């Protein structure tokens, strides 16, 4: 299982994501925003950061990077894609996920060890979690308020597409305390917290994030089966 991690100009957490994939037993490959080629990877991570300086809107310019044309086409065919923080914003701007992420309601950057409930473990990214597992994963964002219109929220809730929900504190004004969602098929997941920063005991609040990366690693080189199940 080879997982590609895209670096955009202004990505911050691409190296952490690569490291997390390797710690989880997977093979990681760095992908470049300007290279319209996925180099045969079995899954893609869009990492956190401030790609293109967050100019215009977070993710609005990255969405048109050459690599994204390929990511979007592959995601529509079922390739597992995980967008973390800025990556989540890029997925919404790409219309691979519904809704949008706006500035935190309290207008300040938030950085905290966040309690979460993993409500959907049917995605390739969350299959290593028990359903409704409660975990602590660091969250750091300025524009992490998830919003969508009423019918979209109803559909996300009704179809079980809320992948992760904030517990105890809603840190950014996200509607329905939504921390992460998936697309209809389940292969594309966007997540505001940073599991790649919660993979080693030495740093951070623990290792609760590692399971985001072990699910796919455990599949070995059988991406097509993950696609077929989706």
């Amino acid at each position, binding site marked *: 299982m080879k997982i590609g991690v895209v670096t955009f100009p202004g990505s911050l957490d691409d190296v952490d994501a690569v490291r997390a994939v390797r710690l989880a037993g997977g093979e990681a490959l760095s992908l470049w925003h300007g290279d319209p080629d996925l180099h045969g990877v079995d899954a893609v991570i869009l990492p956190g950061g401030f790609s293109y300086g967050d100019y215009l809107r977070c993710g609005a310019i990255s969405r048109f990077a050459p690599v994204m044309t390929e990511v979007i086409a592959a995601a529509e065919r079922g390739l597992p894609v995980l967008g973390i923080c800025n990556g989540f914003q890029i997925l919404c701007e790409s219309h691979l996920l*519904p809704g949008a992420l*706006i500035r935190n309601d309290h207008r300040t950057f938030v950085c905290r060890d966040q309690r979460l409930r993993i409500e959907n473990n049917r995605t390739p990214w969350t299959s290593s979690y028990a359903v409704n597992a409660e975990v602590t994963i660091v969250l750091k964002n300025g524009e992490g308020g998830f919003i969508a219109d009423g019918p979209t929220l109803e559909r996300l809730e009704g179809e079980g597409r809320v992948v992760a929900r904030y517990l105890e504190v809603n840190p950014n004004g996200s509607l329905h305390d939504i921390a992460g969602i998936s697309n209809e098929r389940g292969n594309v997941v966007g997540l505001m917290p940073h599991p790649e920063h919660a993979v080693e005991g030495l740093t951070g609040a623990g290792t609760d994030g590692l399971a985001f990366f072990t699910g796919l690693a455990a599949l070995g080189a059988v991406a097509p089966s993950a696609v077929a199940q989706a």
Partner: protein
Amino acid sequence: MTASHRPPKGTTVARYVVDVMPKREILDPQGKAVLGALPRLGFEGVSDVRQGKRFEIEVDGDADEARLDDVRRMAETLLANPVIEDFTVTAEEADA
């Protein structure tokens, strides 16, 4: 002038203005911050502030419906996110 494209001398250039505003029902934290600051500066009676963006786009040739449509497509493709923002496009003549 630092634009990457310089129209030949004598060519008319039309300026299009795209105003982008957060939708009414969407929380606008930046507008709220400005709203909070104004009374502190002694401005009274301000009941709401919403903050948006204005783009001025210059395109070769006179303003016409076809070019206006192009600018509308720019707005819905890149300049605005229709999930959270509304936009208006207007044309105004600019100096060549």
